[in-house]
């Protein structure tokens, strides 16, 4: 994990409130943001777009062997969520350990602590999702 304050700071609009991009030439939404539309390239026109934070579980796993910084959260359910607006993202699903989730379950965004660097370091916040 890269522990950089500027890195975290410049990702705040995406991580805190799911601000993505849209290509107005082909009408495709992207998350995370893109500078170039991979479908249209030079013909593409990229604009910012605010996603609603609603979607469905496309795939999931329960992580038992965590990466550094997530030791106090295991086990946790990690999923690929497909947003209503089209793009997919990787995220944690909260409050489901022991209850289980299925492909196709509806989810909504919640604001949570993602990880902490160390007792005196940065607290990284961002999106997770819950079942609806």
């Amino acid at each position, binding site marked *: 994990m890269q522990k950089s304050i500027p890195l975290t700071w410049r*990702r705040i609009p995406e991580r805190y409130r799911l601000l993505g991009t849209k290509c107005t030439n082909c009408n495709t939404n992207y998350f995370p943001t893109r500078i170039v539309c991979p479908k249209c390239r030079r013909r593409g026109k990229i604009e910012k777009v605010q996603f609603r934070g609603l979607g469905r579980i496309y*795939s*999931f796993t329960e992580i*038992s062997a965590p990466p550094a910084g*997530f030791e106090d959260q295991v086990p946790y359910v990690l999923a690929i969520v497909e947003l209503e607006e089209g793009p997919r993202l990787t995220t944690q699903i909260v409050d489901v350990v022991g209850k289980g989730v299925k492909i196709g379950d509806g989810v909504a965004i919640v604001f949570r602590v993602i990880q902490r660097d160390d007792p005196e370091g940065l607290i990284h916040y961002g999106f997770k999702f819950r079942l609806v």
Partner: protein
Amino acid sequence: MRRVAIIGTGMTTFGEHWDRGFRDLVIEAGAKAIQDANLQGNEIEAGYVGTMASGRLVGQEHIGALIADYMGLNPIPITRVEGACASGGLALRQGFMAVASGMHDIVVVGGIEKMTDLGVEEVSDILGGAGDQEWELFLGATFPGLYAFMARRHMFEYKTTEEMMASVAVKNHKNGAKNKFAQFQKEISIETVLKSKVIADPLKVFDCSPITDGAAAVVLAPVELAKKYCENPIEIIASGQASDAIALHSRESLSKLRATEVAAKKAFEMAKLSPKNVDFAEVHDCFTIAEIMAVEDLGFFKKGEGGRATLDGKTALDGEIPINTSGGLKACGHPVGATGVKQVVEVTWQLQGRAEGRQVKDAEIGLTHNVGGSGATAVVHIMKRV
């Protein structure tokens, strides 16, 4: 384009080499390959070496110069190539292109990773760099987690089972038990896999390839010069490479690797062959589900039938198409940068009849398939006897 052949091969044993460092391993493999090619060393014009993360694993960058120095090959150019776990396969492709183009005649290609100088947690964190650091790893993903997403979709779309995935590990351990270079030379049962500790559901410890130290090397030459150095050179008849989205969530499908399909298509076109012409293959089984997807994406089995085919023994040493005769990444071990070159060494040995207890009978055409990260890079090579 000139035709290119392998005239020498060498590798270290794969495993936990506490007594040997980065340069010891890469020099051993390189020296063995050069000796196997009956070269003095003066004939070598250039080198390409694949390593994924020497900078973070052993703190050493600039390994091209280091290797030229310690191999006694100064002042020839040696260049590092990086494509995560596909670094070795990409290094071979660079060497292949250098010889095919006529830029160089004799070229040495190596792959190396020294992984056990750090603890498992640190190594896992470093390997995470093969995925999307900001949008996968930062949010709590691990590599087993990413492959678990693929396994879950494959199970959902094709009814693939945990038992089918376990059968990949069982088969590869059976092959590894016949390979004195393998990290794990011990057979295991389906129950061992199914009862092992869950890492990222549905993947368990025995679905995962290990952390390994090791190096492998080959020497390349134009076909017209090959017989001068080597009795039975092996020709690289095709090379294909492709890229896909770095993050798994940005790919169209999770139950296949598009980069594998494209790299294989390019390689088969170049070789003027089809998947049914391939007698055996070394594929990238970093996780058991990865081998199931690979045998489908390479065209050996229909989509969704790779798991059943493995469980039924079709990819065993005596099956329709033996897969991972070396033991694969699972049993032979996975020193990430070395893996792609080791696959080529194994295929060369099989085609030369040097595969000892695991020799495939009448092997004519062999294929290697090396993947970077969760599938953002794939490289395929096809080989046959000259």
